């Protein structure tokens, strides 16, 4: 059955429908990772987004439980060049397309994804949708128009758990504000001996520290950090007494908490090959990326030209800009110097992507243990 991708600017790309027989609207983004399609679809950070996979073949090794980054699919649709089902792949528990159908997720294949990506690259990420042919372009346009744009959108509330849940039983207790945390983050913490509390993002500071955790963790998640003023306020109460760490959205929130601004990137960073430089050690890591917003540097510039750590003072004492993206020199991480805390914009937990940065979890837990001792 025929289907098409329509963007808010009227650009249209045709293909064939696959996955669930439905339509989807949201922000059309692209990821350049060559594997890890299922991880991406189930990553809460992709809430309300339609993922364009730049790698043509998607589904090659089917779908399996181990690739779940949450308990459901969050992305609204998959836009692909050449999707396959592969129910018989070794290790596959379900075919990729069967699985999308089971999850009620529409998808489209046979699309000239490269042309689509080139359009987004120049025009910027925008709203759009995937529609079966039976839906007219006129209807489709209305459906797209009904979609709010990402800017100013609080999506944390959509993905956050209804109430507190606790995972693992290790020697260190970490209270995470769950704005859409990925399973591999939780897994990495638990594997290293942590008990992880997953708090709804609306939790108050008091609730978060009720059980006297050894550290606070700020999760990844979807949407505009600027719309999460309430989390930032909570955060400002939490910084200081105990180490605070964050990944992705968590990094943006901590940055806002210490007075930095955030802004929307033209089409985001989504992939598994971005080089990020640790300004302290000079080492370069190949990182997994998935974010549409980024942090404005302390100087007020959106890019950082300095090649050594930039220090500045915040309400919480001195802070240091620790990481920079070598592709576009945007901020990729910061460290608080007078109180224990640090964040990275990229995804050390991989899932999908390279494992170059897993050591950050060891460092994180060592610091907690030292602080606790």
């Amino acid at each position, binding site marked *: 059955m025929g289907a098409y991708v329509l963007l808010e600017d009227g650009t249209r790309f045709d293909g064939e429908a696959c996955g669930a027989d439905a339509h989807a609207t949201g922000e059309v983004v692209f990821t350049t990772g060559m594997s890890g399609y299922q991880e991406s679809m189930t990553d809460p950070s992709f809430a309300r987004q339609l993922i364009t996979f730049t790698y043509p073949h998607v589904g090659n090794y089917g779908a399996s439980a181990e690739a779940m980054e949450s308990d459901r699919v969050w992305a609204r649709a998959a836009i692909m060049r050449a999707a396959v089902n592969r129910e018989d792949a070794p290790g596959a528990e379900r075919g990729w397309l069967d699985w999308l159908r089971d999850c009620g997720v529409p998808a489209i294949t046979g699309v000239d994804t490269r042309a689509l990506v080139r359009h987004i690259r120049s025009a910027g990420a925008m709203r759009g949708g995937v529609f079966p042919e039976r839906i007219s372009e006129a209807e489709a346009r209305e459906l797209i128009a009904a979609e709010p744009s990402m800017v100013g959108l609080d999506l944390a509330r959509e993905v956050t758990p209804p109430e507190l849940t606790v995972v693992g039983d290790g020697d260190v207790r970490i209270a995470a504000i769950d704005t859409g945390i990925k399973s591999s983050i939780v897994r990495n913490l638990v594997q290293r001996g942590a008990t992880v509390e997953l708090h709804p993002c609306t939790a108050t500071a008091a609730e978060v520290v009720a059980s006297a955790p050894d550290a606070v963790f700020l999760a990844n998640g979807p949407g505009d950090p600027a719309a999460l003023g309430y989390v930032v306020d909570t955060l400002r109460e939490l910084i200081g007494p105990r180490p605070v760490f964050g990944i992705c959205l968590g990094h943006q929130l901590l940055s806002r908490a210490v007075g930095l601004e955030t802004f929307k990137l033209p089409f985001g960073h989504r*992939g598994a090959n971005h080089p990020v430089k640790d300004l302290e050690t000079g080492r*370069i890591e190949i990182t997994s990326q998935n974010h549409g917003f980024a942090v404005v540097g302390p100087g007020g510039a959106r890019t950082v030209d300095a090649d050594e750590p930039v220090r500045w003072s915040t309400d919480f004492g001195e802070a240091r800009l620790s990481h920079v993206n070598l592709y576009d020199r945007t901020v990729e991480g910061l460290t608080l110097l007078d109180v224990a805390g640090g964040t990275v914009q990229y995804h050390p937990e991989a899932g999908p*992507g390279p494992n170059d940065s897993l050591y950050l979890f060891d460092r994180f837990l060592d610091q907690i243990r030292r602080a606790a001792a």
Partner: protein
Amino acid sequence: MPRRNDIHKILILGSGPIVIGQAAEFDYSGVQACKVLKDEGYEVVLVNSNPATIMTDPEFADATYVEPLLPGPVAAVIERERPDALLPTLGGQTALNLAKALHEDGSLERFGVELIGADYDAIARAEDRDLFRQTMERAGLRMPRSAIATSVDEALAALGDVGLPCIVRPAFTLGGRGGGIARTEEDYRRVVARGLAASPIGQVLLDESVLGWGEFELEVMRDHNDNVVIVCSIENVDPMGVHTGDSVTVAPQQTLTDRLYQRLRDQAIAVIRAVGVETGGSNVQFAVDPVSEEILVIEMNPRVSRSSALASKATGFPIAKIAARLAVGYALEEIPNDITKVTPASFEPTIDYVVVKWPRFAFEKFPGVSSDLTTHMKSVGEAMAIGRTFQQAFAKALRSRELDSSTAFSELDADALLTALERPAADRYDVMLEAFRKGATVEAVHERCGVDPWFLRELRELALDPDAPFRGERSYKAVDTCAAEFEARTPYFYSGWERRAAHEIEKGDRSSVIILGSGPNRIGQGIEFDYCCVHAAMTVRDAGRDAVMINCNPETVSTDYDTSDRLYFEPLTLEDVLGVVDVERPEGVIVQFGGQTPLKLAAGLQAAGVPLLGTSPEAIDLAEDRGRFGALLDRLGYQAPPYATAHSVEEALRCGSKVGYPLLVRPSYVLGGRAMEIVYSDDGLRDYLVRNAGSNGNGREIFLDRFLENAIEVDVDALCDGEDVWIGGIMQHVEEAGIHSGDSACVLPPHSLGHQMLDRIREHTAGIARGLGVVGLLNVQYAVLGGELYVIEANPRASRTIPFVSKAIGIPLAKIACRVMLGARLRDLDLPAEPMRADHVSVKEAVLPFDRFEGADAVLGPEMRSTGEVMGVARDFPTAFAKAQAAAGAALPAGGTAFVTVTDSDKPGAVAIAQTLHDLGFRIVATRGTAEAIERMGIPAERINKVGEGSPHVVDWIERGDVDLVVNTPTGSGARSDGWEIRRAAVTRGIPCLTTLSGGLAAARAIAAARSGEPAVTSLQELHGRAARAGAAT
């Protein structure tokens, strides 16, 4: 850390002649390195014995030595040039082994030369299988269980823990030479013995078999800050057991989950760190069991490789270029990504297309050789194709192979085809596709060949609907390293098929000229033609046009996006070329430089109204149509050997006797002298016709030429602008006519053709050039017999010898030809009247692959079999010849025992050779007949048994290593004849074996010359300077 300023002069080693396992990819990487290092302001010294390379063009280095890649000559170069550093990682295994040797014999230390890129210990850790294993174990990485043996007995003792089947791998050999899979115990004895003989250190590794596991390669780069990136992952469609060089491979990997792929990535990084390659690229090979997800490390190459060239072309990430910068101190983040300009090289390319590489085989040239594929490499070239989907890429790769004969399996049923798939052979995918067409299921095929079902499903769809991938519109997309995340600046394109065309080509307002490349390397059409295409591109750019290259060979310089203004990585079929013409609308297309491949398209292109530059298709046809060409020669009053054309056995026999025996017979349609034979009688002819009935189906033409025995063959390369003719070089072959021009050694200038003859050759060549109406290059082959000059053939295109001649005379023939094709007149190009009056002699020697093909007869004939060539330059012929022999891998002995056995007709000549060798103090041994003839002239000769006469016979002698030089002229290549056994044994033991009298005589004289010690080394720049002065003096 930026550029190192403590080193100024850097020595680069090339990889020498093209051989199986080491091809044009090292010219590509070497050229990139030379360019980069010169740009960085270093003085570059280069040694490479292969004249057909771009890297040995004088402008690519400050001093270029076309000398044998052996410790002696290279040490001499070092002593003369005193480089500060040696970069050994760009010249393949040859350069690596050579660097190792130069370290071990103290030369590097003596002259204070630092190894950069990879130090001695790192090389040892990667190359010595035992050390490598220990290194991996220390790094906590797993390898197949294995044992090391230095004798067959040791090997038998180890059988217990490795078990059968067992993978036998000689240490320090290239492309797995001499190794193999042993399935039974006697296989095992045989393969181990062969492996021990092949290994320069007499060591074999015996590996537990993981046949059938998935095979993966990762291309890794590391800088001195210990930052590591993976440039590309390559998945072998063929499971473990088929050498990666013979496997169909795909980039990026298709079948691994992200989790599993990331584990491979982590291990590849661990490997390069453990081995300690401080800067540069490495290739790491893994075996992966898709079910248990177990990963084993197979090997790592601490240098650029065939796979890294493939990875560079597949991703747009120029590994060799970056490796060279890293070697002189830069860090990855300090090097900009050529393609995006804005991002640094410290990233991992991501691609949004599929790349498929296909090996190109040449079994048809080696009757009796099995086309089964195993752990040692047998392919002679490769084609790469890029598509938006696997099916597009695979189908394009199929087209790119350009097989001379397509295999038909119509008679086989699905079951027979499935059975055939159990032993991987060169045609396995053709068999597989046919099996699918005949209804075989993916499961059944997987059963038999173990190829991952993902590929099989795609291939089945392709077999059942070959057009499906090409529905919609052809859309030229760019290779940009980043899946369109950034704007690409480098115009490197491929055609994908999409619903609607969305071309990404950006052209300026300069008009463009399309140059058609030569496709996959194969015997008869190799790097020489790529060299010419690259020169054409340079010339077109100099002439103010956009050079547009179309080619599908990933090994080459022509497919480096730096070479042209726009590169289209496409198959060289009429349809694909017309596609590019459509979007380029070029001023003209050049078909003269890529060998037969583009020439075959000339007519079709013209029919489609495409303007062709240079010699017209009519002229090409006039040269190739024997009738019309014969008529031209008659008109000019030139002689050709009497010939006839027959269309049936009877007719052939009738003409045969009319033309007169001996006859040279060949089917009309084959290239490179395929299926060409010499017959001496009606019976011989009948026999030939019967044997080749299959290959020349009824009505197919058969050519019969009078075979000129013991004639001197001459090759001429000339330029013509339609009026004026300029002779670039006259080459006299060492072997007599009857040995394919591509396989015989030749010398320039000629050493024994009188002045009148040379003048007649010039005059004939000019006559033919004008007669054909050549605009550009012309190659004419002659035979000189009894003072008579015969024209054998004329090729109005670049010939195999263009690079050799250009280097010998210091004038770039292909570039001049290209200028002529663009409209220049020869008389305006102030060429010297007499290019050859240089005071040096250049010898070209062919390099043959017999040692790679068990069962092949190591004898030369009218059918070309060589894969590559080397050049020897010296002040006199014998010295140049000796250098060429050494460079070709058959260094002549200074003394010892010479074994001589020749056909009766050759006995007189053999005596002369024996005389010289005797005077040089050689002990002469010979079979009865030859010994008598020699003794009759009062030269002592010991008699030894023919194989038939019982042990110890000649083959025993050779295998015991009691013979240092073999002169054996064949008595007609009857398979398994004595001669066959002798040549076979010599080749296996690497003993120089001369199969022609002229070759034998040249060798004897060369040995005499070599007595005066290690010959001097001279750079091309010096030679050409001298040549120019000599030219000016006239």
